[in-house]
């Protein structure tokens, strides 16, 4: 049984916080981390008589997302009230959208670890307002309410249940992240809650067309936790089903400390949101001309960029995927590749730059090394000023201390020795000091000689502290050794 028998079915609801200055229905600021309730106006507090007025930028951003996933844009979009009582929702309802969402059916292309791609359907995406925050620390047995977040614009993106593994779900989430940050409609900062995810998950025997009973894991807020939550929930459901039990449809929470999901305290009454059209807002009409202008202004999107990286720079699909995944990384790579050596640029960015960022826990936007300097560094390898090995030292210095490539090469005396006189002297010395190896070399046939020559090159590089021009060293060595025979 187990993995070979069961198929995991996953659908995601992703809440993306839109990067507007003001809230979706009021003129309050949306700045993260402001002191409690300093950004909550009379509208956000649901004072009597206050009316919502829709933010144009929230509409624009939603339409842009719709265009990016090739979706139907609702020409007439309607807001609805979703009714429930909770202290961080002062109105007693959330303004959301029910059956006329702004973005209809679309699709995205995800890329998996082996470089292959799959299409995942997006059912819909709708605009809604966020709720405030409840703090349950000890306020003399009471809860503290901060309404700064109340009314922040969210785009809720609902996928089709088309993912079949944790890997696919993470790839989908990364794709959504990449699209919204490319479009600039969200900062995508998961640590600050700009992107949160609900995971719907069920199991069924492979080949079965009916879905099994699903559970919903609420509010998972990192790529890693999505992956782990799906893994542990899959195992939990599998254990129950294999013991002959049945899954209860319920909402669960993922506890990252214990790496388990557990049932949220069941509500006395099942959710019944009693949606109805929001009488305080008229239907939103979205004109074709408005959509056409936005369509024209869309930037190149990740999937298109990945394909272009493959064709324009001759990159493999995995490398192209990594380099196009984030817009800042893609822009950085292209700025480095502009120096002319795209393959070297791809290598240096992926291995050295992304590696160093990862080690120092930085993101690309904090990268201390300007693309122009990395391009200059590659240029100095290619024009034989320095060797690749020395280049890594220069890279470290640039990364940690800053400065310019040429100044570092000059001041540290890193310049490759290409003076044939000096190199000949070094070669002579090494040959004189290694009579045994010279004899071996002379006794060997053509094929073996190539291997043995490596010893001499190594010695010379060591003697020159890596600064000897390897191409010249090889030439001089070959001439001298052959002359000795």
């Amino acid at each position, binding site marked *: 049984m187990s993995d070979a028998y069961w198929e995991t079915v996953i659908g995601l609801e992703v809440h993306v916080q839109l990067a*507007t*200055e*003001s809230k979706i229905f*009021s*003129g*309050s*600021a949306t700045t993260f981390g402001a*002191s*409690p*309730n*300093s*950004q*909550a*106006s*009379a509208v956000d*507090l649901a*004072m009597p008589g206050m009316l919502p*007025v*829709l*933010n*144009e*930028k*929230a*509409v624009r951003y939603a339409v842009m997302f719709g265009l990016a996933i090739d979706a139907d844009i609702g020409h*007439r979009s*309607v807001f609805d009230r979703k*009714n429930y*009582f*909770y*202290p961080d929702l002062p109105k007693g309802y959330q303004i959301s959208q029910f059956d*006329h969402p702004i973005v209809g059916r679309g699709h995205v292309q995800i890329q998996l670890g082996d470089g292959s791609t799959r299409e995942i359907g997006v059912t819909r995406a709708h605009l809604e307002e966020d709720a405030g925050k*409840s*703090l*349950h620390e000890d*306020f*003399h*047995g*009471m*809860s*503290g*309410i*901060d*309404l700064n977040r109340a009314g922040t614009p969210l785009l809720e993106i609902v996928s089709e249940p088309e993912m079949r593994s944790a890997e696919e779900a993470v790839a989908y989430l990364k794709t959504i992240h990449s699209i919204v940050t490319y479009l600039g409609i969200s900062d995508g900062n998961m640590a600050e809650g700009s992107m949160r995810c609900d995971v719907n998950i069920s199991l069924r025997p492979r080949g079965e067309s009916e879905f099994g009973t699903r559970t919903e894991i609420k509010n998972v807020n990192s790529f890693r936790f999505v992956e782990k939550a799906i893994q542990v929930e899959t195992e939990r459901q599998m254990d129950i089903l294999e013991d002959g039990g049945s899954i209860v449809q319920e909402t669960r929470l993922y506890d990252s400390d214990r790496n388990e999901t557990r049932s*949220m*305290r069941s*509500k*006395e*009454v099942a959710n*019944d949101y*009693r949606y109805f*059209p929001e*009488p305080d*807002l*008229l*239907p*939103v*009409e979205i004109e074709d001309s408005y959509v056409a202008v936005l369509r024209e202004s869309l930037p190149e999107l990740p999937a298109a960029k990945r394909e272009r990286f493959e064709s324009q720079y001759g990159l493999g699909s995995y490398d192209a995927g990594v380099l196009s995944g984030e817009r800042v990384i893609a822009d950085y790579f292209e700025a480095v590749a502009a120096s002319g050596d795209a393959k070297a640029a791809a290598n240096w960015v992926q291995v050295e730059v992304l590696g160093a960022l990862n080690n120092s826990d930085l993101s690309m936007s904090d990268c201390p090394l300007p693309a122009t300097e990395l391009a200059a560094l590659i240029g100095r390898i290619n024009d034989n000023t320095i060797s690749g090995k020395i280049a890594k030292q220069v890279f470290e210095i640039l990364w940690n201390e800053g400065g310019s490539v040429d100044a570092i090469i000059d001041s540290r005396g890193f310049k490759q020795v290409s003076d044939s006189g000096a190199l000949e002297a070094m070669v002579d010395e090494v040959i004189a000091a290694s009579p045994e190896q010279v004899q071996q070399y002379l006794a060997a046939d053509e094929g073996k000689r190539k291997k043995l020559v490596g010893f001499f090159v190594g010695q010379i590089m060591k003697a020159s502290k890596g600064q000897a021009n390897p191409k010249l060293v090889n030439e001089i060595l070959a001439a001298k050794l052959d002359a000795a025979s």
Partner: protein
Amino acid sequence: MSVDQAEIEKIAQLARIRVAPSDIAELTERITGILDMVDQMQAVDTAGVEPLASPLNASQRLREDQVTETDRHGEFQGIAPATESDLYLVPKVID
């Protein structure tokens, strides 16, 4: 269409309205009356008629994305029953 006592209790719970047990019978009767009226309206043939999201024949005007509000939490919290550290305090609810 009619509602029963259990449904009245559920609606009251969802709306957070306390209904005295002695009132339930009368409420059941009156809400059933309202639903009968809805049934009457439902009988009208609406095939081909778009559902009405608003009785006004107009579309929503949008506002520019500009911060126009200032921090007035002092004023708002002046009329709140309990506050601390700029937070509104409410009876503890964990859902």
